[in-house]
């Protein structure tokens, strides 16, 4: 049984069919990629998987459990972590607070703890703080722990997003263009991080990318999405040489 399985997922925005008959199977520990031109519906697929939109049709199961119709935070706490294409950080919070916040679902002290500052709360918050600092250290941003996220460089902000997503203890990590807007140096660092995360946590990773280099190097299997439809699926080599993919990216003449 695959860890994350999507069958026949279709979604309409009004009359517009944004995604049609999307299928996906991710096994534990697998890295898969999703490529496609702008506006193909890649991010929409992520939003459907994470519950921001509810698919018009289709089934999504995570670890054998149906997650269609669950509220986003429940899907996230069942093990679907994600990062965002346009970095979505909380502008008035520090790096450490970000990572601690992602442990929200694990807090059990409840309102009593929050209102009266009970011993249980201090214990739990100390625990998640240790965990958060560990993650920051792993991603090499522990020295920013007390800084406001807005004061960080773009690359560091991406890492904060990654640390935050890892703090939710995901089984499958969805990365939405993790290297968007990065220079070559930052790009190789980010790829190293993705590999490291993959190895240390044994995570399944599903990533959207524009840069073929990243996808080709990291992913075992790649899907190409054009206008909401998967036009080709296979290993990096296959995809690279598929005339349909070249057509979608470069236009008809290049094929001929």
């Amino acid at each position, binding site marked *: 049984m695959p860890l994350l399985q999507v069958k026949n997922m279709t979604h309409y925005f009004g009359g517009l069919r944004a995604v049609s008959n999307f299928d996906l199977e991710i096994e534990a520990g697998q890295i898969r990629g999703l490529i496609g031109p702008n506006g193909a519906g890649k991010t929409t697929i992520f939003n459907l998987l994470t519950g921001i939109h509810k698919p018009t049709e289709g089934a999504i199961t995570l670890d054998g459990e149906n997650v269609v119709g669950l509220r*986003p935070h429940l899907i996230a706490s069942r093990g679907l972590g994600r990062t965002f294409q346009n970095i979505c950080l909380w502008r008035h919070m520090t790096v450490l*607070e970000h990572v601690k*916040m992602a*442990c929200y679902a694990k807090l059990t002290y409840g309102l009593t703890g929050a*209102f009266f500052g009970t011993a249980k709360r201090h214990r739990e918050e100390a625990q998640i703080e240790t965990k958060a600092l560990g993650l920051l250290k792993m991603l090499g941003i522990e020295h920013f722990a007390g800084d406001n996220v807005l004061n960080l460089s773009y690359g560091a902000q991406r890492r904060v997003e990654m640390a935050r997503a890892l703090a939710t203890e995901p089984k499958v990590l969805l990365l939405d263009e993790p290297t968007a807007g990065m220079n070559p140096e930052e790009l190789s660092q980010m790829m190293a991080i993705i590999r490291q995360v993959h190895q240390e946590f044994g995570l399944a990773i599903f990533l959207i990318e524009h840069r073929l280099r990243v996808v080709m190097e990291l992913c075992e299997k790649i899907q190409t999405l054009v206008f909401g439809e998967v036009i080709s699926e296979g290993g990096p080599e296959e995809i690279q040489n598929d005339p349909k993919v070249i057509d979608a990216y470069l236009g008809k003449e290049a094929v001929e």
Partner: protein
Amino acid sequence: MEVTNENTPKEKKGLKQKIRAFFAQAPLIGLIISALIAVILEQTVGDLLANLIGLSKIPTLFGFLIILKKPLLIPSAMLYVFIIYVLPLIIIGKFTTPLMNAIAAWLFKAHKLISGVIYIGLLYLILHLWADISQYRLLTLKLTLIAVIVTLSLNVINGYMGEFSCSHPGFMALGAYTSSVITLMFFVDGKIISEALLPISLAPFVFPFSLIIGGFSASVGALIIAIPSFRTRGDYLAIISLAFLFIVKSAIENLEFIGGPRGLSSQPDVADLATVFLWTVACVWIINNFVRSVMGKALNAVRDDELAADAMTVNTRRTKLVAFMFSAFWAGIAGGLFAHVLRYINPATFGIQKLAEVLAMVYFGGLNSVYGSVVGAVSLSILGEALRPLELFKWIVIPLMLILIMIYRPTGLIAFKEFNVREIIKPKLSPPKEV
């Protein structure tokens, strides 16, 4: 920190720095003790001194009223304030710093409960002695403390959660009426029911429960805004909350058994200074606890990016629900206290005027900051009273100040600052605190 003289223009910065440097060595306990000495001084020799320098009585509000009413007495009023308040501050602040730091260090190490009781006890003593001089001071102080509660509770929504709630006077009204109906029913003949259920001597014991029930009724009212907040936010939610305010006001106006537009009066006299003070301390403590916990920080996450909050396992609906109900609870408590301090309420009290007042305090003091809310509520309440002799011009001066604050500090005096009590009571490094 910047509280002392915010409105002074730039050329006075030298003075500001001097003042700051002067107090940099003094811990909070030193300032508290000097304030205590000041109020004791006022109790004992205040009258004598006032007569000596040609004032008819002790200046009630740090000489503001006298200065505005009788300009000829300005030197005497200033002299009085200097001798009674500033002199002890300078003497204690300057010459006893080692001793005070030793005390502060001891209190810092002592058990939380002990140091908490000592600090709060001293603070109460100061306020009590200060308010003992006149009824006017007492009333101003009580209303100021209530304003602190309302401002804090509104800051939870408008600051921490970033929604614009206009409904807080409505929550106050719910709390005020609920608790008044309970106390009137139990202890006053012929108001709600013809014969009181309990002897009046029990009133102080029932009063806290009536307040809490009032708070909960406000929380229930808050559901009307919390549920739409799942689906909409920003301006739309602000309009809904404004609608709620009008609903509450009109509903009360049309309910005859609670007096309709004439209001309710003769509540039992149970809200003494100690009660109001303790509720305020509880409010500051609990709200501060809440907003500093990860669960409270979830409010900020919802404000700054709700989608990201959802994706990071934060239960955004629950967060919003808790924020609205919690905030409304405290507004309800404040309303109940307000009703029993004034011992008269009518629906008109809880209208747009009240809303403007509370909003001004929140935005003046600073968003997302417990510290700022306390400062905002205290300074605007005191200012409102101090500028009373200006009559109508008061409503030109205060709004003008608000505009100036917004120009120079767009998010308020002390925004986005954590209120860390341990940081404040720490020996040596301590900001001067406004009383």
